[in-house]
């Protein structure tokens, strides 16, 4: 790790993130294997479509655990919009789509990330509820069960599409972001560009952890 890098995430955050990411990815891939006949071969790779079904269902249990921790952990930071600065940020699309002279500064999460979190949290819960009912359909009235399938598909449409947005903006679309979820240390320049308000807050409250430096004013409050 280079000197001067700033800690953006702790290990717990990263473990929760990757638990959700891995289980979600397995669910997407195995789900595709069941949704499209042309992707049935994914089942063949897993020892048959029936094995794939079980992998899907049991990954779902792991996903439940991950989504619970995800929501608990990020609800306060990413689940609530702070007006009016978030609205201003959205009005200029965070400077992602056209040239903006001065993008409003954001805290730990920008409104785009908040929207992504809310979509994942909301549709994640939908996926869990619909998925469990689809797993045990005979315990529920058939009129209810019938609508679980399109709802599950709708959740997939949203999460799968958002996944690629997330993938792009977490890697080449926003260089310097990925390390936040790999080892957790990011550059000051990246923080200043992406989350200037958060950087300032950490500096003011003494929560800023710089690699190779003693934590300043560790007893901030």
């Amino acid at each position, binding site marked *: 790790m280079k000197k001067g890098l700033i800690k953006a995430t702790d290990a717990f955050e990263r473990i929760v993130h990757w638990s959700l990411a891995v289980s979600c990815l397995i669910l997407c891939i195995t789900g595709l294997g069941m949704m499209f006949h042309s992707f049935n071969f994914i089942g063949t790779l897993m020892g048959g479509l029936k094995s794939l079904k079980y992998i899907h269902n049991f990954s779902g249990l792991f996903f439940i655990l991950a989504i619970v921790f995800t929501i608990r952990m990020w609800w306060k930071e990413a689940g609530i919009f702070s007006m009016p600065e978030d609205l201003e940020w959205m009005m200029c699309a965070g400077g992602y789509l056209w040239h903006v002279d001065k993008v409003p500064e954001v805290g730990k999460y920008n409104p785009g990330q908040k929207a992504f979190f809310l979509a994942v949290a909301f549709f994640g819960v939908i996926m869990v509820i619909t998925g469990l009912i689809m797993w045990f359909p005979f315990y529920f009235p058939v009129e209810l*069960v019938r609508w679980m399938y399109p709802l599950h598909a709708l959740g997939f449409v949203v999460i799968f599409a958002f996944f690629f947005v997330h993938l792009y903006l977490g890697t080449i679309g926003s260089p310097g972001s990925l390390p936040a979820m*790999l080892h957790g240390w990011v550059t000051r320049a990246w923080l200043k560009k992406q989350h200037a308000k958060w950087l300032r807050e950490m500096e003011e409250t003494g929560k800023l952890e710089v690699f190779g430096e003693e934590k300043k004013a560790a007893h901030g409050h």
Partner: protein
Amino acid sequence: MAEKVKLIDVAKCTGCRSCQLACKQWNQLPARQTSAAGTYQNPPDLQPNTWTLIRFQEVVEKEGVKWLFRKDGCMHCTNAACVKVCPSGALYHSDLGTVGIIKERCIGCKECVAACPFEIPRYDSVTDKVYKCDLCLSRIRADLPPACVKACPTGALTFGDKGDMLKLAYRRAGELGGDASVYGDKFVDGTHVLYILQEKPGVYDVLPVKPHVLLSVMAWKDLLKPLSLVAAGGVLAASFLHYIIHGPKTPDEDDNHKTEGGA
């Protein structure tokens, strides 16, 4: 091969259940112990090992009681919801227009159970698979009628080319007159099991008056399923265009010299 149809003339059915037995015999479906439930109908419902069942009803009328027998089982829809939802291709349309089932491919997801407008497929938790009538596809291919048709002693069941059966059905319904009607050719693009009903369709137990592929199935398979790939593909294309037109969002002047974020 030409499309085949099984015609069920309920007016000729005496409720002898030869068809039920012949089905079990040909398809090697041993019976299970049942208990008297105060009705002639036995077993009480379709089961994973009972693919056809005579449904029995007593209809009280002004002068006395009328008995209704209806042979229930897969209707072999042209636009079959079960085939539409089946993830593994276990359920499929045969070239005869019937809906076949490949047991080995069934993964026991039970999606067809909720999708079928006629409530036909039955799930067996022991084998974790779904079962239903395949109209004795192996027999038809060998130029034999389905086992139930072969066993019917009254001529209530007939089997043949779709066109012939339709003609026969409408002629017979006309002969019967009154409330008699042909049931099956007007919905789900036509079923390959047709009824000549003596009463109005609504009189018969478990028989939907206007069966159709459910809206939930269409929303799921015709709209959301393709949309999932379209949306994801759109995002990928948009990301690529964003990268080459607008470019990534990079930090301004770097305090830490040129470090692309750690490592």
